[in-house]
Structure formats: C-alpha cells, structure tokens
C-alpha cells in the first residue's frame, strides 16, 4: 500500500512538474574519498558525474545523454571538535568545455542524540572560456537519524534529509535554487558509507519558468586510514 501511495505521489509530482515548467531527470553518482594528512587537516577528493535520462525540453524526451563530470579536491581544517573550514578547487568537463571553480566552505555538526544536524555554508566562483564568471553562495541543513537504536553503528541503516538554498549571480542577474535531498544511508564501517536517494532541484525561482531537476543519486563516502610507521 505504501509503495502504491509513493508511486502515485511520484507520478502526480512528475506530471505536475512536466506540465508547469522544464523537467529533467537522470543519474548523479558521487564519490568522496578523504585522507587525513595532519592532526587537524585532511584532503577530500571527489568525483561526480551526471547522466540525463529524461528532459521535456528535448524533441526526444526519454533518451540517454552524458552531461558532465566534476573532479574536486578540498583541504579541510578542523576548527573544533565539530566544525571545519574547507577550501578547494573543482574542475568541470561539460560540452567539450572546461570550467574551473574555487570553493570556500564552513561546516559544523550539532549533536542532539540520536539525531545529527549538519550545517554547511559555501561560496564558490566558477570561470569558463565562453561564459561570464558565476558567483554562488549556499546554505545546507542536513539531518541524519539512525533507523535502529540510538546511534548509527556499522552495518546499520540511517535516514538523511537535506535542504539547501542556493543564490547565484551571473551577468548582473540573481537567481535562486532550492534543493531537497532525501537519502537512505548504510554505514558499512566508520570509514565507509553509502547513500541512495534523490537530489531534487527547483531552479530559476526568480524567473517566470522554473526548472525542475530530479537526480537519482548514489553517494559513496570513504575515509582512507593510513597506519603510522613504527
């Protein structure tokens, strides 16, 4: 019954989005690998790729299309027991073009057992050869809750819900995007997590025609642990 209601709700939601504005959907796998390089310092490397499956603005709405790949590298400095300042660089390969992005980030985690709240402020600047520079600022609130017990232990499932607000300036114009991020996560070990879920983006909210993007997402987070030499 729950499956039926979810399917019906999804169908109505997609139908609404399809009829009201542009709608696209596809796959968005992400990998983040972190490596501790000092007492309070770590390097976080990431790769993500977008593949489009549905786009109602194309002649053939249902068709596979490779969109882009991002490679990123961030240095993360631990400020306190639960806060970090991060800075780094992202390179994007899209439509035979290369984009460069510089990123500055502040994040912290609040503990309200059994829930963890993650806060993240980001500013970034994107540069490409054929486009004007793009400046963005964003805030994301994430909630994480174990599905059994009072804390998330290895081999246990958890729920992660995120909500992000993103402001964007380009060519003197401002726009707003809102993201909803529901995930079902599995803690393989303390250094290894995998999450399945959706990344729903409602973009161009300031413009008349909004854009709806629904990405089916798999996130893999892995932390490399190097044993100290004796």
């Amino acid at each position, binding site marked *: 019954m729950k499956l039926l209601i979810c399917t019906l709700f999804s169908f109505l939601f997609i139908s609404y989005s399809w009829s009201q504005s542009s709608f696209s959907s596809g796959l968005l796998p992400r990998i983040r690998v972190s490596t501790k390089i000092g007492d309070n310092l770590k390097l976080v490397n990431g790769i993500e790729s977008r593949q489009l499956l549905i786009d109602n603005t194309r002649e053939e709405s249902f068709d596979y299309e490779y969109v882009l790949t991002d490679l990123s590298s961030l240095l993360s400095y631990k400020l306190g027991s*639960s806060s970090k300042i991060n800075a780094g660089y992202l390179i994007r390969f899209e439509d035979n073009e290369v984009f460069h992005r510089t990123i500055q980030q502040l994040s912290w985690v609040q503990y309200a057992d059994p829930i963890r709240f*993650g806060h993240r402020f980001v500013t970034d600047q994107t540069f490409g050869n054929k486009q004007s520079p793009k400046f963005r600022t964003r805030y994301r609130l994430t909630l994480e809750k174990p599905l059994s017990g009072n804390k998330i232990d290895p081999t246990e499932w958890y729920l992660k819900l995120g909500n992000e607000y993103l402001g964007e300036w380009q060519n003197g114009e401002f726009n707003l995007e809102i993201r909803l991020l529901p995930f079902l996560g599995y803690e393989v070990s303390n250094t290894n*997590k995998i999450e399945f879920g959706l990344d729903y983006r409602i973009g161009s909210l300031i413009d008349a025609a909004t854009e709806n993007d629904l990405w089916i997402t798999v996130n893999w987070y892995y932390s490399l642990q190097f044993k100290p030499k004796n």
Partner: protein
Amino acid sequence: MSKYTFYRNNRIKLFVFCLIIYTSSYAQVKFEKEYRIKEDQVPSQAVTFIKKAFNEVKIKWYKEESHEGKTIEAKTVVDGIKHSIEFDTLGTPLDVERTVKLSSLSSTLQEDIKTTLEQQFVKYKIIKIQTQWKAADETLIQLLRKEKTTHPYAQNYEIVLKGMVERSYQRFEVLLNEKAELLKILTIQQRNTDNLDF
C-alpha cells in the same frame, strides 16, 4: 556520442575502478553495536527488576555489543528525566544512570567538578551529565523509587564533554566519584561527518 566523449567516459570509469581497488585494501571494521530488542528477548531477571522499580512506564530495550562484551540496556523517561539501566546478559543490574543538569547539583560539587575538569583539559564544554548509581539490586530499586535507603551505594558522575587536549578538540567521557575525583577518562570515537560536510 563523439569520440572525445567516449574516451572521456571510459577514462572516468577506469579512474573509479582504480579508486575502488585502491581504497578496498584499507578497510577496517569497528566492533561496537547497539540495537533494539523486544522484551521477550530480555532475561526475566532484568524484566522483573524493571517492574519492581517503575510503575507503568514505557521501556525501550537495547542490546549492546562492544570489545568489552555484551550488555542489555533498558531506557525510559520518568518525570522528564532520562533513565538508563544496564544489565549483564543474565539480567543482573550493573548500574543505573540518570541525566541531570549541572545547575541541579550543589554549588560545591559544581566547583569541584570544574576544578577536576580544568586539570584535565585546556578548554572544555559539558554536553551531558549523568548520575551513576552502583549498588545491590534492592538498593537500586529503592533509589529508583525515591525511597530512603540505609544500604551503601556509590554515586558517580558520568560526563560527556568536548575537550581540548594538545590543541585539538575531541569528545570525552569522564567518570568522577561523588567527591568529583577522577576515576576514568575515555576518548569517544566520533563518527565520520564527511556525509554531512561534503
């Protein structure tokens, strides 16, 4: 699909494949787990203890496995106070913990706790305080029922805090006796927060 795109896609697949092979060789497993169990999976001695100690309260039962062994835990809220009663696997009570506010403790004890913590940490912030009772079964029942007891019992304080040691913040669990003297300090291994940060 252009030749350029095809080459680029396969290069990414190769990179991901290499990354998986490389990272899998470093996998580690942490052995600590807490999970809900039903009342019929709990030793009868523990269930009887709870029935004697409380009147009509909702109990959540947990089993905890760690490197120290297996225990059973009963969690409940009475008069707005969180209670946690720990048993061994046969159902013998080990201790009772109740969450309290620092301000509810006597001012002398607050000062003594502050002095002890300042000796251990450059800076600290208290997150949670629990009083911990260790005693014989009947004494623990009397304490939980707020009855006067003439039997001996130990009252310790278990404090979870964020503390700075050697210019680095970590979470610690500190156990103090009733005079706020240090009994034990444990470093709490925090769960990785990459999935909330990035």
